């Protein structure tokens, strides 16, 4: 068996291997599609609470969205062979994108509610559509950051 102390390229080899591992962390098509559908469901909540009959609550929809998000994460781990868990804030390169996702989500929900209250329905739909696109882009940026941190070995807890 080779001995690392007599092999000055051991760390270089490890960098190459980490690069190979990080390259596996590419989401399949259904993952980003699923993320888009989930955000679309989330941004549909202000509309449903306004236009659906009183008996329909939004909590079951949100619960379904959270369950679907967990299933998507599980599917991503199965497809790539790499599980990054739920504490994704620990990846420094993916953190800004994750914070941007949360802020965009909150801002879009508040803006939609504001616009719906003033009967600006078309504008609210446009805001929701733009927010979905922004969220999917942010999700891609977060995965890029996670890949970079896996490559650099910076994602350790």
């Amino acid at each position, binding site marked *: 068996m080779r001995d*690392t102390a007599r*092999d000055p390229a051991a760390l270089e080899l490890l960098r190459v291997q*980490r690069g*190979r*591992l990080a390259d596996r962390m590419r989401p399949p098509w259904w993952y980003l599609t699923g993320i888009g559908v989930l955000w679309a469901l989330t941004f549909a909540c202000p509309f449903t609470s306004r236009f659906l009959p009183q008996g329909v609550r939004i909590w079951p929809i949100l619960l379904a969205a959270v369950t679907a998000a967990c299933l998507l994460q599980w599917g991503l*781990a199965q497809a790539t062979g790499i*599980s990054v868990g739920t504490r994704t804030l620990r*990846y420094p390169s993916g953190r800004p994108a994750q914070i941007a996702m949360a802020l965009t989500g909150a801002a879009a929900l508040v803006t939609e509610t504001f616009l719906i209250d003033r009967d600006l329905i078309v504008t609210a739909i446009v805001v929701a559509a733009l927010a979905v696109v922004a969220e999917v882009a942010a999700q891609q940026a977060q995965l890029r950051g996670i890949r970079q941190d896996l490559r650099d070995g910076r*994602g*350790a807890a």
Partner: protein
Amino acid sequence: MTAKPDPLIHPITRLSICGLLAAGADWVEFAALRDAAGISDSVLSKQSRVLEDAGYVQVRKGAVGRRPRTWFRLTAQGRQAVEGHLAWLAQLEEAVSARTRDARQARPLTGGRDQPRRVLPPLLGSS
């Protein structure tokens, strides 16, 4: 974290396995680890068992449909050992590169006696 060599992860195959598991993922699946490390199934099975017995690696077995799947992750003890070993290797690499740099600087010019006259004017003229 103290930089010190760990005899258990000193062999390069085990260093690859531990180094990949320390990259930041929670769990890494058998095939992903095998492909990234560029080793065979049997080597990974054997070395991961050694690391598991030493308490450095945790193994979880599951299945998707009929396909069995094995997942690995570093334990806290394993992570500490790997980080210490990688820090030690980084120090070693730094020492080797410093020695190479010193040796290169100490080496006399191989050109003729008029080499400084040929080299210096363009450099001085460009500044």
